[in-house]
């Protein structure tokens, strides 16, 4: 499930999480929508397996060839750790940069050091450690 506020309608897809977190699903349903709204501005969100990750890019819209900061919020369950990465599956390569994520508390995080160096379809990857498990959510973007 992908929701976007302030973004053009583009194809997006969430891949399944690695492990099911069943009991949290209801809480996540409640959080979906609210999670992106809490970030404010043009935020997108992806959800699955009881978690929601909302994100927005600074600057917006996501530029090519310039460093980008992602403001993030994880809803539904507390995240012990969050990693952010991106790749171009069709090209079989990722970014030339390794982002870092800072936990700001209350489910908020900020990722720095992303740079999308090529036009085309990118996959944003969110790896979330929660309750001793790791869940992966992804979002897909077409950058021009």
């Amino acid at each position, binding site marked *: 499930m992908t929701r976007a506020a302030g973004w053009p309608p583009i194809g997006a897809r969430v891949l399944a999480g690695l492990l099911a977190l069943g009991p949290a699903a209801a809480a996540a349903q409640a959080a979906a929508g609210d999670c992106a709204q809490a970030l404010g501005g043009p935020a997108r969100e992806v959800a699955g397996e009881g978690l929601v990750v909302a994100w927005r890019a600074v600057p917006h819209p996501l530029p*090519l*060839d310039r460093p980008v900061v992602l403001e993030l919020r994880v809803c539904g369950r507390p995240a012990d750790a969050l990693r952010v990465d991106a790749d171009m599956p069709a090209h*079989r390569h990722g970014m*030339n*940069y390794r982002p870092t994520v800072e936990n700001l508390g209350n489910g908020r995080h900020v990722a720095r050091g992303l740079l999308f160096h090529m036009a*085309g379809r990118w996959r944003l990857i969110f790896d979330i450690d929660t309750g001793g498990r790791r869940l992966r959510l992804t979002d897909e973007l077409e950058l021009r």
Partner: protein
Amino acid sequence: MTPGRVRRGCAALALLAAGVVAGPALAAAGGAAGRAALVDLSPDERAAILRHGPWPPPPVADAGNAVSGRPAAIALGRQLFFDGRLSPTGAVACASCHVPGLAFADRRARSAGLQELDRNAPSLWNSAQQRWQGWDGAADSLWSQAIRPLLDPREMGGSAEHVRSLLAADAELACRYRRSFGREASEVDAQTALVDAAKAIGAFVATLVSARTPFDEFRDALARGDARAAARYPAAARRGLRLFVGRGNCALCHAGARFSNGEFADIGVPFFVRPGVVDPGRHGGIEALLASPYNRLSRWADAADATPTRHVALQPRNFGEFKVPSLRHVADTAPYMHDGQLRTLQNVVRHYSDLDEERLHADGERVLVPLRLSAAEQADLLAFLRTLSPQGGAAWRAPPLARCR
């Protein structure tokens, strides 16, 4: 051209479908001849072409260089750039390899300072617009890039102390140094003098922005729907441009107004320096960058966004990758590739047409496929590439440099 390496074939073939009208506003803008220049472009082609401008871009300062943009420092840097005395032999200046009349390159396959080197000198036009300097991106600013040849025994063979002594002993340089940095060169330590000299050179190089080209005139005519002006762009160049943004997929890496995404790619050219010795390309560049005492994270850098340096990732695929060069002035900068192994622009086009896929890393991206261009298509692509140089050649017009008092 350096499209990356994804095996998705010639994804933009559809863009070449003729007969897509660009829009009624354009059709109304010129006569029949003018209309022909625009109406055969699809909306996607038009958008792709517009992304290669406008030109010139807003000025960019040398990163981490507080004196970039200051006239006094630019004047000092310009004088140093042409001064062979920066080399203890008195025979090698920055301008020895970056010759203004040769697009700030030198037309050698491998440049030579005090000795012959392993790579050729890239053009300095528009280099302030780049995130990384050099074929391997080992420097993250113009000033840190300038330090390497100053000290390299194969290039200028200088030292920090030698630079300090020159700045202190020459009255004109000493005056310009004082005006630039507000102190005497004779009173600073050698490292400070070296970094200051490099920052002055960086400030000068940051002023080198190339002139507008026939392509820019066409691109802007397209942007404003001026069919009559667009019709002045040669038909062969227009066909080549459509190949460039379409079936050739060249714009994937040669993106934006500089015709480069500023990153690195392995395009299947051999990277042996000599039998048994390879040039590691970007892999070595990242290692050198992170080890450099003069990078944007260093104490020598003035306030600068160091995000790319802090986050750059060293990966195995960086072996054999080299900078995606800007294509502005490309017709003036033969020979081509990091070591000048392709003598002419025609050789470069043929390289992409007949690409040897066996040379590409198996785990790399797979954009590159042989384009199999006909002779006519190769000629069109060349015609387009030649429109990326200003009319009248690669001249640099130097404003008079007043004596320092």
